[in-house]
């Protein structure tokens, strides 16, 4: 993936679409986990979700923008 994305003539960092994609992925994960009550098994659900998001976007960023 390119390091900079042109959106209607405006240059944006390539990380931005990756992060937005990860946000959407998090919404999906939240929907599934919320219905199944999976977050009840976690000590600090919001910390877990935050870290999961950081891991996802970090991994995706490293893999896609190397």
């Amino acid at each position: 993936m390119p390091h900079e994305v042109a959106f209607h003539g405006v240059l944006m960092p390539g990380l931005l679409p990756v992060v937005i994609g990860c946000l959407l992925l998090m919404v999906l994960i939240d929907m599934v986990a919320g219905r199944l009550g999976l977050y009840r098994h976690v000590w600090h659900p919001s910390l877990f979700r935050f870290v999961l998001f950081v891991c996802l976007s970090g991994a995706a960023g490293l893999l896609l923008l190397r």
Partner: protein
Amino acid sequence: MSAVPSIDASATAAPRWPWLPGFLAGEARSWLFVGKSLLAIYVTGWLAMWLQLEQPSTAMITVVVVMHPQSGMVLAKSFYRAIGTVTGSLFGLALIAVFPQQRELFLLCLSLWLALCSGGATFYRNFMSYGFVLAGYTAAIVTLPAITNPLNAFDSAVMRVSEVLLGIVVSAVVSDLVLPARLRGVLRQSARKQFGEFIDFVRGSTGGSIPRERMEQAHLAFVRAAVQLEDLRSSVIFEDPEAHARSSRMRLLNQRYMAASTSFQSLHHLINRLQRRGIDDVADALIALYRPIGVALTAEPESAHEPALLAQRLHDCVLAMPGQVASLRKTFTEPSAQLEFDTGAALLQRFARELGDFTTTEAALRKPQLRGSVERVHFRRGNDYAGAAVAVLRTFLTMITLSAFWVASAWPFGSSAMLLATIFAGLLAASPNPVGAVRNTLYGYAAGMAMAGVAVFVLMPGSDGFLMLVMTTLPFLLIGPYLGTRDTMPGVGTAYTLGFLYILALKNPMVYDPEHFFNDAIAQLAGVALSALAFVFLPRVTGSRWHRERQLRRLRRQVTLAAQAPLEGLAWRFESVSRDLLQQVVAHTRPGSDEAHELLAWSLAVQESGRAVLELRQDLAAGELDADGRRHVDAALQAVARLYQSPAAEAWLQADREVLAAISATAGMPRVRQHLHGLRSALHDPDSPLASYLPSTLTEPVDAA
């Protein structure tokens, strides 16, 4: 303390300061909030400087505006603020692209946009309204500083949006991760309390008769609970994915709760009327029929409010009901008594079914896992266009006055005054007493700016580095969030912090300019004061006598809507809008006053008649009727709609006549006939406010058929 004097005072082990634990717990909560706010403010400031954003102070101000002791509130506020910010900055960019050289047209359009945004804000409760205010305010933030240099507008917009979003993200992360205060517990607790209270009330009233006074109080409590639950739900879904997954079920639960409480009231009014008219045998038969519901709801104390168990028992009770109805009906021989009994029995079975649905939904919500999906329903609000129009006009006049003054005087700091007036005219439009709120804000703002003056000219020049910055500003900044947790002076704390951070205008490297400082301070204070002036000249209509009467008319018109609006989703809409309207108006009346009493009486009448009208329309839609019956029922519905639209003796007579005609025209349709009879009996209720339009000659009226 015991009444018996003890010999050894210390042996009783009474705490020396009984208020101390409560005080300490309250202080701990306050200081936790102060700590989290300051942490978020400084982290944002540091990140903004590290990312080399133009104005770190904008990001820090965002944190102040978004911070709230409850995490769910912060996340909800952040979500809507982000939407508002992006919308506002896009509009600002478009505006500056269209009118780069035309300051009059530009300011006119900006004022219009701000006015429309603050009008839109009055349509929503909660933080959605906040998103509207922010959409207006961000357009001003983006465009006003760039107005002298339109080529810079795009960069300026990008900077402002980045700063605001940075502030939002940091405050959301801090308040959600660091010792979060969850709203979900509050929601769960109040939902359980609501469920328990409703079940207890239903169980406790199997005697049949409830005085009107008590029914009014109970109705008010049920309405409050329903509206409050919806308010909480709309914030909690941001905090907790599990709550989010349950959102549509919670909405359904609330709707079923409202439907069941309407049926419950209608049933009791019917029994009361029968008893009052001396038809005790029918009333007693209905009470006998009602008793099994009470028995089904009576469980062992430890499982008294266990919805799964109650749902099962209610289900059995509903199944057994037709048999009981048939056996009780045999005791009546006269057709009029049979009609009375059938009407009551149908209502009772409807209530039992709805109560069963309500408990089933509650039981499903308490399970750890969800299965399947449910019908999507919405809690509609009763919005007032007059209130919105006044808000639009007020903001527009404020902004256009300030713009004209700015253009005419070439005031270098006019944009600061405009910005501040924008913020507070929008933010405080929803407060119950805006003039008082602006006064509080003005005091807080002035105090914050004075403190910032000390910090920026006495302490900061000798300091160096971020740590020193924290040390010089922390003692002053502590005061704001702490005051924000006290209820005695609402608004002062936030205004203090805002004033402090705004005028501090942190930059990296820091700029010290006393002339700019004082000019800006004067302009900002003038902006705040001008928004107060706007509230004095164009006061808020909400809560005024005119507005209350208007809302009462709208409440009555809900019956008209029930009779005329398209049937799709109307039942849910009727139940929620009529309750929301009552809740809005009742907040502005004194409890126990004649006005509050009248309002509640109307609300009960509207619930009962509106529901009967809806049932009738569903019968019509089901196509059970022949053409003649359909025409008569339609005429009856329209007559009732007119009666509620403008109540008068004439309209009452007309409605009564039409309903009676419809009853005789639908002899072969027991269901429709029962609904019509229920409607007619509601019209004749001597306790309802419609009774004042009743002709005095009609004393013993309802023996129809």
